[in-house]
């Protein structure tokens, strides 16, 4: 007996979670709710990675996005007082122009994405840890080191930006 239908059901549920969560981030009035729905969207995206057979990337996703970035954003929400505001003050003034500008690009990308036919299917050939580690530490060792320098620079920059210099 084949269990292939379970994957389809999981894919449908995760798609619902991603689209619903992302729409909630954009349209929710309470900003804390936006942040938590963002974490939910990240979690559903990790499920997508598992479905694609990239378990290591899914683990990184949960650790970095659902863990670190969500906590950072929640700190940002905490330090800036938020008040519920009327829906008229919710969106920026240039929203109609922006929609007019983005709609053609969105239509184009959507047409491409929905008409994408590969013939081959997404494959799950064992874990992805060994090939990923081989690629990172052999072929991409130098960009990896550059990324660590970038993280250091960002950390110092963030500390300098929020440091009080009033003594």
């Amino acid at each position, binding site marked *: 007996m084949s269990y292939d239908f379970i994957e389809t059901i999981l894919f449908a549920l995760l798609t619902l979670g991603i689209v619903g969560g992302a729409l909630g981030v954009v349209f929710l009035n309470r900003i804390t709710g936006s942040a938590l729905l963002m974490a939910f969207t990240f979690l559903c995206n990790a499920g997508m990675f598992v479905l694609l*057979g990239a378990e290591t990337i899914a683990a990184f996703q949960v650790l970095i996005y659902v863990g670190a970035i969500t906590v950072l954003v929640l700190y940002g929400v905490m330090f800036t007082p938020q008040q519920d505001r009327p829906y008229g003050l919710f969106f920026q003034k240039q929203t109609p122009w922006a929609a007019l500008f983005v709609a053609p690009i969105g239509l184009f*990308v959507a047409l491409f994405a929905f008409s994408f036919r590969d013939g081959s299917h*997404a494959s799950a050939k064992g874990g992805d840890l060994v090939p990923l580690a081989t690629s990172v530490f052999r072929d991409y060792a130098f960009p990896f080191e550059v990324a660590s320098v970038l993280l250091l620079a960002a950390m110092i920059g963030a500390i300098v930006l929020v440091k009080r210099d009033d003594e």
Partner: protein
Amino acid sequence: MNIPVGAFIAVSSILFFIGVAGVLMRRNAVVILMCVELMLNAANLALVAFSRRAGSPDERGSVFVVFIFVIAAAEVAVGLAIVLSSYRNRPTVDVDEVQAMKG
């Protein structure tokens, strides 16, 4: 595995354009940062989908996803620092009202 790659690409494009809509529409700077994260996540999904499709020789796409994780962490840390220091000068996080660099 019976889900075609195109389905993942479609979900990724939907997520990306929801993020674009959020960046262009919302006034709150913290929400704009969240929507940028959504867009980066959509790019991650597309990269992993292309990387894991049948016949691809190695995990190059996943390597770039790891680098995008690093960029996203740096971006959100510096972005929140800028929002907080701007909030300290003027008590607002509305991007419409922060005009310190307007000519």
